[in-house]
């Protein structure tokens, strides 16, 4: 067997050992600390500050029909243009500061409903925090977001 072949075998064997050690370490650590795979609650919802109210699809639909709320889409412009809740405005998290001018014209107690892609994204919560920091007092997060709204075939536009 040539030297190169031996080195390759050795590299693969060592890699395999390291992967196995990492699996054992990772699983043990998460089991002991009750994090990761062994976490009691695996939803990103837990990361939301307690003063932000999470609303369900049914509540979001009710508020949409009452026309008393402004829906804010926290996703990237690209996703917003591909489809969004009818009447929703796009405030991409990264460009929050550029939207502050018109946001400040809205009454601070106006009901704002923030959403992003769905339960797998955090930007709705982050945007809600920023809005509250800017003085808005009535901010809710529609946690199911675009995915739930789209699946339920509720009013949308492109």
């Amino acid at each position, binding site marked *: 067997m040539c030297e190169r072949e031996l080195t390759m075998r050795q*590299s693969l064997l060592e*890699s395999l050992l390291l992967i196995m050690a990492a699996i054992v370490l*990772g*699983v043990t*650590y998460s089991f002991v600390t009750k994090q*990761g795979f062994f976490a009691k609650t*695996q939803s990103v919802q837990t990361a939301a500050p307690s003063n932000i109210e999470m609303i369900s699809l049914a509540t979001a639909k009710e508020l949409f029909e009452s026309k008393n709320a402004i829906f804010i889409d926290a996703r*990237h412009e690209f996703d917003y243009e591909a489809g969004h809740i009818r009447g929703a405005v796009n405030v991409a*998290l990264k460009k929050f500061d550029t939207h502050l001018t018109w946001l400040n014209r809205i009454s601070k107690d106006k009901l704002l409903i923030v959403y992003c892609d769905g339960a797998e994204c955090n930007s709705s919560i982050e945007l809600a925090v920023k809005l509250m920091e800017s003085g808005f007092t009535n901010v809710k997060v529609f946690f199911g977001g675009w995915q739930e709204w789209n699946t339920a075939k509720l009013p949308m536009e492109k």
Partner: protein
Amino acid sequence: MAFWESIPSGKEYEMKSLLSNTILILLVRIFLGGLFVVAGLDKITDSQAFANSILQYKVVGPTLAMCTATILPSLELLCGISLIIGLYPRGCTLLITIMLVGFTILVASALMRGLDISCGCFTQDPNVSKIGYKKILENCGLIVLSVWLLFVRDQGINLLKSFEKQPDKPIN
């Protein structure tokens, strides 16, 4: 080929000796290994946030993201430590190269899909370290270093070898 043609020229020789310089190799190992230790430690302490970062790339579902968030930080940590101390140097360099290539492809695909997300590489703070072409360049630099380490014949200090029993000196 004539005998004198196999002798490297002055500059070639200097380059070869620089690339196989044990001190330089050790410094690169400490740098690369240190980066992986820092990255692994940050993720291992908050695997929930890391799982969220993975989900933002929209490549895997919640279960696979959680599995990755449980195992990948440990792998980064182990590879980083191994590279620094010289334990299983070939294996950890190979894994580090594979991980770096994988991360770079992931960032590039996210950029191409127009995702505006945080990298989740060294910190899980969503407002820090957004993905961009700078991140790809950084990763490419790290890939060059890891590939170089992968092909270096002697990787310098190896703790395993230093623990091996040395042959007794012959008595004169």
